[in-house]
């Protein structure tokens, strides 16, 4: 348990610290000339950062052979969803004035909104089923369901890339990290593991 503690502190810190900064700057009126836009971009950025961090836990376990990354994955995932909900709420309240009609119009006409909203629905289902109870109830299907994180991440990055005017550096950086993390899920990692297993197995027989 003691070995897990620093990992848990780090995972909570990754969520709480950026949130506290947002609160601090809001209270001090230091969000610049367009505070709504600032908070939309800030919460969107942190959603992607936390999402990619969550997805980095499996590769981290593969590389370090530690189990702690997997055990703090849920905390990171729920913080991701928290930032996503903040991001979505700011848009609903300040951009749309809570108009359902305008939301419908955006969902139909604005592709980046359609993509973002779909990603939110996916992560919503993951957040709901994140409890141990749901994990037991769904058994093997839980793992299948939670692979929704992959399409959600892809949609999230495209959502960002779609609305940039000319300077695509930042969204492309997210895309590069995402592709790297996805590459860990490709079968080649199994081949490597398989060959390692074979090696160790063959060395044992000798």
């Amino acid at each position: 348990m003691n070995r897990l503690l620093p990992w848990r502190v780090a995972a909570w810190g990754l969520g709480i610290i950026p949130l506290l900064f947002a609160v601090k700057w809001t209270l001090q009126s230091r969000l610049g000339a367009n505070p709504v836009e600032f908070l939309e971009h800030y919460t969107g950025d942190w959603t992607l950062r936390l999402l990619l961090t969550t997805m980095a836990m499996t590769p981290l376990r593969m590389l370090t052979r530690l189990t702690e990354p997997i055990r703090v994955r849920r905390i990171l995932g729920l913080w991701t969803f928290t930032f996503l909900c903040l991001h979505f709420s700011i848009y609903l309240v300040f951009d749309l004035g809570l108009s359902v009609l305008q939301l419908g119009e955006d969902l139909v006409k604005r592709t980046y909104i359609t993509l973002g909203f779909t990603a939110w629905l996916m992560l919503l289902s993951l957040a709901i089923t994140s409890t141990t109870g749901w994990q037991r109830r769904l058994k093997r299907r839980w793992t299948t369901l939670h692979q929704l994180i992959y399409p959600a991440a892809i949609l999230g990055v495209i959502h960002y890339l779609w609305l940039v005017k000319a300077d695509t550096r930042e969204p492309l950086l997210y895309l590069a990290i995402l592709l790297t993390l996805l590459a860990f899920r490709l079968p080649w990692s199994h081949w490597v593991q398989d060959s390692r297993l074979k090696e160790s197995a063959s060395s044992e027989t000798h």
Partner: protein
Amino acid sequence: MLIKVSHPHPIKPSEITPESTFRDRRRFLLNMGLATASATLGGCDSPSSDRATNIGQASLTVNKTSAMAGGENVTAYEDITHYNNFYEFGTGKQDPARNAGRLRIRPWSVVVDGECEAPGHIDIDDLINPQALEERIYRHRCVEVWSMVAPWTGLPLAELLKRFRPTSNAKFVAFYTLFDSQQMPDTARGVLNWPYREGLRIDEAMHPLAFLSVGLYGRVLPNQNGAPLRLTIPWKYGFKSIKSIVRIQFTERRPATTWNQLASEEYGFYSNVNPAVDHPRWSQARERRLGELFKRKTLLFNGYPEVASLYSSMDLRTFF
């Protein structure tokens, strides 16, 4: 009998300078303390940590003021000067305020050429008579769905253009921004096709609302807002109002314009503010005024219906 004596200067400076700007010095000192505090926290970069204002800009003589924003509140100086699109100094909204100090605005000369009888290479101080400046309070609407109201100091564009006696072949006017990678390090990345260029049809350029600005808030224009000379075309999206002009060229054919070159289906040559014509990726029906939280409705021609006659025979959906 009521005798109403009008004030010689219809708008008092206290009316156009929001209280927040008057309080700025104290806020600056406060923020310096907070900046120290947050520096110890480290890691995160405050969006407004850089509060060094350019309110120390030299004053200009303003002969008359025309409030042409329907009585709407003027946006805070701090906001107008710290929320800019000037990609030569970075693509972030705060980058120009941070980096435009590198721009040398004197000596500065402007080349005027093309279809005119009196072309020339004129020093800015010979081009602009500081005793003949007026102020216009205009709405400014960016294609990115934010807007502001700014008091510009300058002169009607037509007044300056006529001095060069454009010929009957002058159907358009092209404008070019300075392109100097020494002063503008961000141009090395080639986000846009430098130099930044813009253009107007000659009748648009000669319209009485078309304005050339050398000042803001009655003071010399800050570099990040396009010093020493910029266009101010209030009925068009902000990117048409080109900054830091070094060349004006009368042309017979429609000139190439930067954003149009990058994505012609998204940024038209005309780019008149029009709530009915969406940007392909987002709606233009509403806008967020700097200093306000909720969006307001966007007005056709940004609330300047007097320019409508320029486009009476055109389909604004085709010629967006």
